[in-house]
């Protein structure tokens, strides 16, 4: 065995072979799909566009959640595995408020007041959960080996899931539908559902706000300082505990907002388990974009959303794989592994990987 593994060359060879195989498969599959005869299930250009927009929409929700991962990772170098549950906490709690608003006619009567209110409420709930989580579970672990907070986060993830299951029950709830989000608008020949535009725009606004906060404000500067070097930041008179708490609060806020935005776009399936998969996906997105980088998380989210929406139909159908949509996660996670292999710093992130990963 050792003779053949004498150096890295086997590894390099395998990785390069992998690269070639995957590129060939992707192109071969896409070629086959696109050249299908029209009567054998070929997807039209318009439909591709729809899928692309759907992907972007889903991707913006991933991006909002991913920001929470990336902010926390940037500062504490820990994977807050429970972040998906923070998203769930906001979305699940707010569904009751939204239902009530709908019942009294407020939601459809004054949607421009009601929707921001819902977003703020949900963000607030998630923020509280995030801050409590940090205070109770994570703060005592500062400086512990990295595995310790990770395991804690896994525990917190279970704890939160089943706390909310206990509080609100195990059934599925749905957000009410809002009339102004129905229908679609035509933009240069393509029709785009209003709900998608709503998601996209709200996500952009939130992300823009975050970017401004991190880059332009004092607290943002403090965050960046803490992420560079905690000790030096402390010497500069920055209250580390506050900055970390603020970071968690910010991540929670975005996740809670994402919960409502997601709920108004895809109203169904609100239950205690709803955060787990978006959580893992959003983490994937954060890594894809370059963990620790704010714009990276945004790009990573959009990228992952689009890949998931288009990948199965484009590649796997062409390769003749039955049930391609079942394997959309395989595409997502293969992407993740490929990015980690070929570009471990992610699409744009680079600061952290050299130094710390």
């Amino acid at each position, binding site marked *: 065995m050792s003779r053949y593994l004498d150096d890295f060359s086997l590894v390099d060879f395998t990785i390069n072979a992998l690269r070639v195989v995957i590129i060939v498969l992707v192109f071969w599959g896409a070629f086959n799909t696109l050249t299908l005869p029209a009567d054998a299930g070929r997807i039209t250009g318009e439909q591709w566009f729809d899928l692309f927009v759907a992907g972007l929409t889903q991707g913006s929700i991933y991006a909002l959640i991913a920001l929470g991962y990336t902010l926390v990772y940037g500062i504490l170098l820990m994977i807050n595995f429970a972040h998906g549950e923070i998203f769930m906490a906001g979305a699940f709690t707010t569904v009751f408020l939204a239902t009530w608003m709908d019942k009294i006619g407020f939601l459809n009567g004054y949607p421009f007041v009601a929707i921001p209110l819902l977003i703020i409420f949900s963000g607030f709930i998630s923020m509280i959960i995030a801050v409590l989580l940090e205070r109770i579970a994570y703060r005592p672990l500062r400086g512990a080996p990295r595995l310790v907070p990770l395991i804690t986060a896994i525990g917190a993830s279970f704890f939160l899931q089943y706390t909310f299951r206990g509080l609100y029950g195990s059934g599925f709830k749905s957000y009410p539908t809002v009339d102004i989000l129905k229908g679609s608008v035509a933009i240069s020949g393509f029709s785009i559902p209003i709900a998608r535009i709503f998601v996209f725009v709200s996500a952009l606004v939130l992300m823009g706000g975050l970017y401004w906060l991190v880059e332009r404000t004092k607290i943002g500067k403090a965050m960046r300082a803490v992420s560079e070097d905690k000790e030096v930041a402390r010497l500069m008179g920055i209250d580390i505990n506050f900055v970390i708490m603020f970071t968690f609060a910010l991540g929670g806020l975005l996740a809670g907002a994402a919960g409502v935005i997601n709920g108004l776009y895809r109203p169904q399936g609100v239950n205690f388990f709803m955060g787990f998969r978006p959580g893992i996906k959003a983490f*994937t997105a954060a890594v894809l974009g370059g963990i620790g980088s704010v714009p990276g998380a945004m790009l990573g989210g959009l990228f992952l959303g689009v890949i998931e929406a288009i990948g199965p139909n484009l590649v796997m159908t062409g390769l003749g794989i039955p049930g391609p949509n079942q394997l959309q996660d395989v595409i997502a996670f293969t992407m993740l592994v490929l990015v980690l*292999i070929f570009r471990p710093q992610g699409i744009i992130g680079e600061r952290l990987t050299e130094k710390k990963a």
Partner: protein
Amino acid sequence: MTSIAAKNQQGQVQSLWKLISDESQPYHHILRMGFLAGITLLFLGLIGMLEAFNEREVIRDVVTLAQFVLFVPTFAAAYMAAQRIREEQSIGMVLVAATIIGLLSAIPTIVILLINTQVNIRDMFVHVNRDWLEIITFDNRNQLGLGIGLLLGSLGLAGLLGAVLQNLPQKIRRSVIFGLSLMLVIGVMSETVGLIMQEIFTDDFLDNFFKRDTLLLNSAIGLFVFGVALIWVPDKVRRSFVFGLVVAMVALGLRNLLLAIDSLTSIIPTSEEGFLDVFLYFLLPFVAGFAGRLYLEYGSRDSNKAKTDTKATTSTGRPIRVDLIVSIAILLVAPWIVGRALSDVMVTIGIFVLMGIGLNVAVGLAGLLDLGYVTNYAVGAYVLAVMTSTGPLGLFNSQEGVIVNFWMVIPVALLAAMLAGFVFAVPVLKMRGDYLAIATLGFGEIIGRLAVSDALAPIIGGAQGMSFIPKPELLGFTLKDPEQLYYIILVACAITLIVSIRLNNSRTGRQWMAIREDEDVASAMGINVAQAKLLAFTISAATGGVAGAIFAAKVGTVFPNSFSVIVSINVLSLIIVGGMGSNPGIVVGAIVLIGLPELLREFSDFRWLMYGALLIWMMNNRPDGLWPSQVRRRELIGDDSSPPADESPMMASE
């Protein structure tokens, strides 16, 4: 005018706030503890735990688990507060403070109770229901005033009792706590205890102590008294008593084992009435063990009276060897002591121990955080399923004369899992830390998706899974029950353990540790890091494959939903909870995380909740696990100056 009054008031509020928020003030502490206890109590109610626990009677017709749990937060808070303020305050003040904590702890619950009379919050909080109301108000749902009064009174009393207990002399306190805990544990686990006891005692006899798996009042009192007494008897007597019990268990197991083998049944005397059995296989061995151990303990003290300092070391020499023999004996007959249902649990624990030892090679020794261990488990299970199934998907089901059995497939499963481990390791060799974790997590998900996929369904059954996996056969016996499968897993664990220990103490083990500590330096020492990591992944994968194969044979069917990320997390968590890098720790971790949830049926709704809480608590309070590895323990004892939780041997290289 008004502004002055307002200012005045504000001033008062401020000074009051100061009094409360100043951490050095006892008021702060009292309020805080009362508040915490109150929130906990409310939480337990809102998530439905009280309701669920109300169905479990700790003592038949006397007290349910919910009524017990109701008082625990208050009691604990008062106890802790008393511990803290007793230095500065008089005993009277302490008792008053504790009572106030008790009263405070009722408030959050009462608030929700009152809100509920005005607004229907049940649409949101599903457990604000009749059952909860009844528990909280002690069945006075319709006379809320009385109910609230009772709640306040009883919680106040609980607080007071907490402080009283805290102020008792230490030995009394310890014995009372031990007695209560013993009663509570046996009361909650009475079903498990009953399962073991029914192997020897007749039902009618057991009915005197348990009624339908619930402790009776007299036996509960008996247990309490027994628990208290156990603290007061000398150490040696206590040890001897436990030893006697263990010997009796071994004898009982041996008897059941012999009874289970048809040809051997006749050689041992048994009786229809059960008395002879109890005497021969329980009482006699117990007395023998107890007396023998007592003799050993006290006899050796007499002979060593002169050299008092070396007493401890010399006198424990013989008992330790005896302990070892008895431990091995009890491991060998364990399934016949606990019966089939618990044997099933033991096999499950064993499967996870096997995986734990394997994953420990990657995580504990080599520091490679693998969150996709389920991959190997799935590969082992599916290899066994495809190769041995007699159903339509079995690879060899239609070929006449080709006999593929469990034993032949085990090595194949092992090699297949190693191959899988190898293949999945190659692309991730250069990743470190969190990236590795997340990439392996991705692999685990990919395998899960592939297992259920339509694409692979023609080979491995897809959503419909694989059935008709025959049980292993050995020398003409079919090992179909968990009692027999236990031995397969025992042997597998033993072999794996030996391999793991040998590797650990070898050049390879040192290479892994060096990589764990500092990958760059390890490479500068002449270690081929890539190769050593590959080896760690591959060897680690091997036991996962064997565990998967045994799992498939045990269950008899393989469905894709058995191979979710939960398995990976379970295995990783049990390593950590047990104590990273510690082999006994893995067993302890598996018992706590895999075994206990199986035993505590009432908790099934809350198993993951408690699992999560346990992980958080462990990481915050005992990050080195329940049974730390030897290196770590040496550290804990040897070096006080190093900060705790700093640089455990796990991920120090980061």
